[in-house]
């Protein structure tokens, strides 16, 4: 399954000293692949900076949790704060990168992740703030849905979480940057091929010339 593969690929986006907010699911997994010696400052939108690995039983702290109300640790040099401060940090452009999942992304960089009319009703939570406010938005998701359809669309069909906000798309098969008139292919997974990417990507790929094979 591609979860670990996507998580590993996300980790290649990290740079030393970067402040990053990771969405739940695959993006959070990527924290396990932060390169040794690199300091990535993880923000959790409920109000913490510099959180680390989950604690063991008996060593948890009910006041140290992530946005999924799972137990976390906060490392030396970390900070805790209230929710207004946290979202000021997010909306004000003080987070270098967010990596979040999505139901669909389109070639204009719009993303749908919070609602399927008549089916999925959860509320947008902090997703819209993250997509709008973070300096760089990376979408991490499987390339196709369970019906085999491309999740990278000409135009999102579901209600948007953010309009024209995405910088980079990382899937289990490829990596794209959202550029002027569509998508620029950056990387193809070693188990995939250019043919497959073209076949499984509905959105317009405007630059097919600069990609490399990921390892």
């Amino acid at each position, binding site marked *: 399954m591609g979860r670990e593969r996507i998580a590993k690929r996300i980790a290649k986006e990290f740079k030393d000293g970067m402040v990053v907010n990771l969405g739940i699911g695959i993006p959070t997994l990527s924290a396990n692949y932060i390169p040794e010696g690199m300091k990535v400052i993880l923000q959790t939108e*409920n109000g913490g900076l510099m959180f680390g690995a*989950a604690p063991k039983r008996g060593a948890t702290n*009910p006041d140290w*949790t992530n946005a999924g*109300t799972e137990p976390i640790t906060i490392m030396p040099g970390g900070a805790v704060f*209230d929710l207004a401060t946290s979202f000021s940090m997010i909306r004000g452009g003080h987070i270098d990168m967010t990596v979040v999942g999505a139901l669909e992304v389109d070639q204009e960089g719009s993303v749908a992740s919070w609602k399927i009319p008549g089916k999925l009703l959860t509320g947008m939570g902090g997703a819209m703030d993250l997509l709008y*406010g973070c300096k760089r938005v990376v979408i991490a998701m499987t390339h196709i849905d369970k019906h085999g359809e491309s999740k990278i669309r000409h135009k999102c069909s579901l209600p948007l979480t953010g309009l024209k906000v995405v910088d980079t798309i990382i899937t289990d098969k490829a990596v794209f940057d959202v550029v002027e008139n569509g998508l620029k292919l950056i990387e193809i997974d070693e188990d995939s091929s250019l043919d497959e990417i073209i076949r499984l990507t509905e959105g317009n790929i405007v630059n097919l010339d600069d990609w490399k094979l990921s390892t």
Partner: protein
Amino acid sequence: MMAIQIKPEEAVLKIKDHDSLMIGGFLGAGVPLVMIDQIVEKNLKDLTVISVGAGYRGGGVDIGKLVLNHQIKKYITSHVGTDPNLIKQIVAEEVALDLSPMGTFIERVRAAGAGLGGVVTPVGLGTEVEEMADKIVIDGRDYLLFKPIKADVAIIKAARCDRMGNLEYHGIANTNPIMATAADIVIAEVEEIVEVGEIKNEAVGTAGIFVDYYVQGYSFEERKAIYEDLWIAGNKI
């Protein structure tokens, strides 16, 4: 007036049927557990609950108890995904849902407490959120204008409280300090009540002037046990 200590069963009498009720915490974390249990026991009805999200994942815990007991008529929030029972009641139109993005939600609560007339934010432009607010233009750029959110009563959770009602938070304080400013009556549930002077000036997260009543909640060790049980049950630790 000075904050006073009362028992949880007295504090709950400050809340009435049909009240708007802010509940501090974040999806189950940092929530006033004892006060919520009191509200269940008292069987208060038709509450408008204002909370950043629903209760602990899966439902039936903390705010989820109010859901199971059908005490809520309206839910003002940014996220209900953690409580399937609440979602069912929303779909059945038993509970009205009033959504805004999380950062906007908490800023609206802050605005109410801070005497501001609204929140001007770009978040949600180009999405359905536009229908939840007015659009205004500043310097040629679009923004959404949201109204403040205030409540009749707020029940919040802090770590320690002194005899003047000054609150100290430990760890992630989440919505609690903001909600403390935005309700007519503020009830703080704390782990420990200490004498005046034991909380350093710099460590006061909510000044006592915001707090009307404080109640003894679970101790830190008791809360730790409660959450460890939840986390063990959910395979989180």
